[in-house]
């Protein structure tokens, strides 16, 4: 009996190690923009992308004016700041009653980039310095680096895109939390290839 248990444990351990090496090396080869990480980087074992929005109130309240950005795209302190300035929300008044605002903030804090177990959330966090509070997803160093090759005519001068704020104008599966390069189609331009 002991021998059986031991061999089952050994096989299980072997499978875990094989899977870990397989997934990590696979990610190292398939990642984009030279974002290669070594096979021992456990962050590659996290789920890819960011967590999709799963809160109906968040989808309704935030999504009535713009894409309901997954909270895993900014850290807690950015969300706290933003939810304290809704009277001037990037030039708009987006005030909410205290009950709704608190419920949304709790959801946002539970799923912010500094807590999310997702690969892109981790990368956003790594790109941020500890002493500043970034206001916009599109101002995080990770975002800027990922979009630095995108010409102005594809976004700001493109009437079907207009702004980097409109993630889902080009990222076909943004609402699912997927921002992979092979899931991008720029309106009027076509599929994006690095």
């Amino acid at each position, binding site marked *: 009996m002991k021998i059986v248990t031991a061999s089952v444990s050994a096989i299980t351990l072997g499978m875990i190690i094989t899977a870990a090496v397989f997934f990590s090396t696979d990610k190292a080869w398939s990642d984009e923009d030279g974002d290669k990480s070594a096979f021992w980087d456990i962050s590659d074992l996290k789920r890819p992308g960011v967590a999709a929005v799963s809160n*109906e109130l968040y989808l309704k309240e935030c999504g009535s004016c*713009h894409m309901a950005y997954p909270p895993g795209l900014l850290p807690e*302190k950015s969300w706290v700041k933003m939810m304290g300035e809704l009277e001037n929300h990037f030039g708009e008044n987006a*005030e*909410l*009653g205290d009950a709704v605002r608190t419920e949304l903030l*709790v959801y946002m804090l*539970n799923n912010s980039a500094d807590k999310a177990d997702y690969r892109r959330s981790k990368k956003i966090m790594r790109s941020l310095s500890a002493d500043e509070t970034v206001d916009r997803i599109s101002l995080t160093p990770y975002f800027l680096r990922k979009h630095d090759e995108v010409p102005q005519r594809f976004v700001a001068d493109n009437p079907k895109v207009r702004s980097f704020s409109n993630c889902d104008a080009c990222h076909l599966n943004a609402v699912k939390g997927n921002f992979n390069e092979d899931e991008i189609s720029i309106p009027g331009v076509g599929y994006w290839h690095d």
Partner: protein
Amino acid sequence: MSKDLGNGIYAEAIMVHRAEIKAKFVNRYSAILVGGLMMLLPACASANESGATIDNVLAGYQSAGAVEFSRQRGEALWAKQVVGAEPFSSRSCTSCHGADLKKPGQHVQTKKTIAPMSAAANSQRYQTEADIEKWFLRNCKWTFGRECSAQEKGDFLTYLRMQ
């Protein structure tokens, strides 16, 4: 993080947040439950109820001191051009909602389509008192630089419900 945020709504939010981290699994199930209830709420309201909702809201404004509501005053206020901050130095309700209330509008900044204001053209309008008040608060402040009075809001609704 609590030092500079330790008051009011944030203190409350942070307390809730910490409690929820401790009971993360409980929270997950309750989030699903709350989410489910939220989904049920709009399903309970139907297009026919927009009239009843508006009636209730108007009654509330009258309790708050408003006199008889006027469609004409509502229409005039809806079209009134107001001097505001750049880049939208001249703004009105129609800046975003457009001239024809049966048709969709377009947000002046984001260019996002805004569903028609007419309840006849858009069955999702005027479904809850909370939504009506939320948008009055935001949009009166953005357009007029102040909150609207109960009288003004009643005049608006009296005009809008006839579109």
